[in-house]
């Protein structure tokens, strides 16, 4: 246990002090800062759909703030005098404006108001019904006033229907609300696991390539060496994750962008995810990392040089990527057969289950069982990887065949260990080729 701690400390420190760690952290924090702060600097509301110029030729009391609150919050509304209409039309043509609204009505309260809406894109007419209703309400108020009715009469005319919303499936998740947060979490998890597990593989291959492995194995058991490395690099990953998320939260808090950040009308608000999703996400992060890091370590241990690592981990990376794409499908249909079935396959569980819990409503057993399967598989994969690692780290030259790998795993009854490659050469030349 003590040597595990020393190996762990060495891996953790080595990772945190590496240049790639520093630069990657700085780069991501800078990118987050740019996304949050740049719209602020330009004085605009963060991430709105554009500006709508409103020319009010009618006597109706149209106000920009009401347009925002009752018509559409995702556009910036500005009131423009009639004289500037031509200039605004120029802006619309050059796409610096989303739309122009001209509202006309004669002074006669009985006349119907006319709304002229000019847009560039068809998408930008989405607020038209709200706008129409808003103008109609103002117009009605105006007409009621002009008729000189008593308060009661006026109230009875302008009375609004009461709307009571009854959600039968209370707590059901809306696609618009969950899509972006889950997608963000999934992507983040994908890259973090890939990056850090890949790092474990590189580190294993480097130790093998520099031949220090031969000394280490006389001091530490392969299981402890592997575990120390995986946990050390993993904790460095969690630290990096915490730095990135922490600085993101700080930036959002201090810039006041916390509530209004949205992309394409979909809000990025991790708080809607709920405790269950976040707990599952944390479990998937950790188990997924261990599962893939130990697999990657085994792959890293069978190559002779760190340059060959990517080639060795390719098959596993492919499966990992398949998991990512399946998770994207599951995001649209979290309760579909494909999503449910693939959430039970440990190679795919980390990503698919995260999405199923985040976007759908799986039963508790449907969450716990895949986690249990993944945890048990992680343990098994860890032990098997340690065996391959133990055999692989002293094996130089050509890559071991599947047969050799099986022998390392103890599947074959005749134990053949490292340097089986040498024996092949030894048979040909009549003497062992490993240097004595």
């Amino acid at each position, binding site marked *: 246990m*003590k*040597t595990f701690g*020393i*190996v762990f400390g*060495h891996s953790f420190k*080595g990772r945190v002090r590496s240049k790639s760690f520093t630069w990657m952290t700085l780069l991501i924090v800078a990118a987050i800062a740019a996304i949050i702060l740049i719209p602020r600097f330009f004085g605009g509301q963060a991430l709105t759909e554009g500006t709508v110029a409103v020319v009010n030729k009618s006597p109706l009391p149209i106000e920009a703030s009401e347009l925002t609150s009752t018509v559409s919050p995702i556009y910036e509304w500005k009131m423009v005098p009639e004289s500037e209409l031509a200039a605004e039309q120029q802006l619309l043509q050059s796409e610096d404006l989303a739309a122009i609204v001209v509202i006309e009505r004669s002074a006669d309260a009985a006349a119907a108001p006319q709304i002229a809406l000019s847009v560039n894109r068809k998408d930008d007419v989405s607020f038209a019904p709200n706008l129409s209703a808003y103008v109609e309400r103002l117009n009605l108020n105006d007409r009621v006033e002009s008729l000189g009715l008593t308060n009661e009469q006026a109230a009875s005319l302008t009375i609004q229907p009461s709307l009571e919303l009854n959600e039968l499936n209370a707590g059901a998740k809306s696609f618009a609300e969950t899509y972006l947060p889950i997608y963000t979490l999934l992507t983040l998890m994908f890259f973090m696991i890939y990056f850090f597990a890949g790092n474990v593989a590189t580190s294993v291959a480097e*130790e093998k390539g*520099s*031949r*220090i*492995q*031969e*000394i*280490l*194995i*006389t*001091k*530490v058991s392969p299981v402890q060496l592997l575990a120390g490395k995986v946990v050390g690099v993993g904790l460095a990953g969690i630290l990096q994750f915490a730095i990135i998320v922490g600085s993101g939260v700080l930036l959002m808090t201090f810039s006041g962008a916390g509530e209004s950040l949205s992309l394409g009308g979909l809000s990025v608000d991790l708080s809607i995810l709920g405790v269950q999703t976040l707990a599952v996400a944390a479990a998937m992060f950790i188990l997924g990392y261990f599962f893939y890091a130990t697999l990657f370590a085994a792959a890293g241990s069978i190559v002779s040089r760190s340059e060959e690592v990517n080639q060795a981990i390719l098959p596993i990376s492919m499966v990992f990527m398949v998991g990512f794409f399946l998770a994207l499908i599951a995001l649209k249909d979290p309760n579909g057969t494909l999503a449910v079935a693939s959430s039970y396959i440990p190679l795919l569980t980390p990503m698919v289950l995260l999405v199923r819990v985040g976007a759908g409503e799986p039963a508790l057993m449907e969450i716990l069982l895949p986690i249990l399967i993944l945890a048990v598989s992680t343990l098994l994969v860890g032990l098997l990887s340690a065996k391959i690692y133990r055999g692989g780290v*002293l094996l130089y030259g050509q890559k071991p065949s599947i047969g050799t790998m099986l022998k390392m795993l103890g599947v074959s009854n005749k*134990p*053949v*260990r*490292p*340097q*089986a490659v*040498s*024996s*092949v050469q*030894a*048979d040909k030349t009549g*003497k*062992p*080729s*490993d*240097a*004595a």
Partner: protein
Amino acid sequence: MTLSINRLGKQYGGKYVVDDITLEVKAGEAFGLLGGNGAGKTTTIRSVLGLLEYDRGDVLWNGRPFLANRPSVGYLPEERGLYPKETVSEQLVYLARLEGMKRGEAQKALKTWLERLGIGEHENKRLEQLSKGNQQKVQIISALIHNPELVILDEPFSGLDPVNADMLASVVKEQIAVGKAVVFCSHQMMQVEQFCENICIMKKGRMQLNGKLSDIKSAYGRNNLILRSEADLAPFLERKGLSDIRRDAQEWTIKVQGESQAHELMRDLGQAGVPMLKFELREPSLHEIFIEKVGEAV
């Protein structure tokens, strides 16, 4: 403290690449494990250390199974390897701590060793910034810093210049003097002769010769006659019917059957009035024994 290897065998695909190795290394002595390239020295060492699993025989430490009763080992592998990107002190302290040293102890020992080998100023440099010879010294420190009971040095002198080789030789002698059991793998006979009381010569995975170096040599007898003279001895030696003659710049080395033949030759030389500068009867060198046993150039 004794390392005993009994009838050790290691096979690959049914073929024993190392077999029937039996030897014993005691505390306070250096054991020379000799052999040509591919003789099985490294395979033997790796089997002892548990890097490879052997297929028959036993390895014992103080009479108990080695791996279950592992002493602290200082291992200098033939293939050198450390962390090129880490500083000298970082990696040596790390390796020492893995052997159970406290950080403070390790740092203190590190300082002493760096000074001892004359590379104190490189303590905080990355390994890759050091010359090859200095990297080799760091590697040697990595094997000795934790004060191991058993020291296994595989070709420790390769890559060192004569000055540094002498420095290492004094370090090795010191390790023997303080009671370490030292296993010395080499095909540089000069160094082996300098340190090792007991040797084993391996060839194709088998032991060719095993025992006390002085016994082995005396068994061969003093059959090397070395002559030095300013005159040309060739015609005289030919007349005597001696065929196994080697001549280098200054001396003749003649294989004789025994001491009496040598004495007779000396008398004849005197009678013939050949002016002699040197007349010496010697045991064969380890180099010669090695060549004879292994039968191929090293």
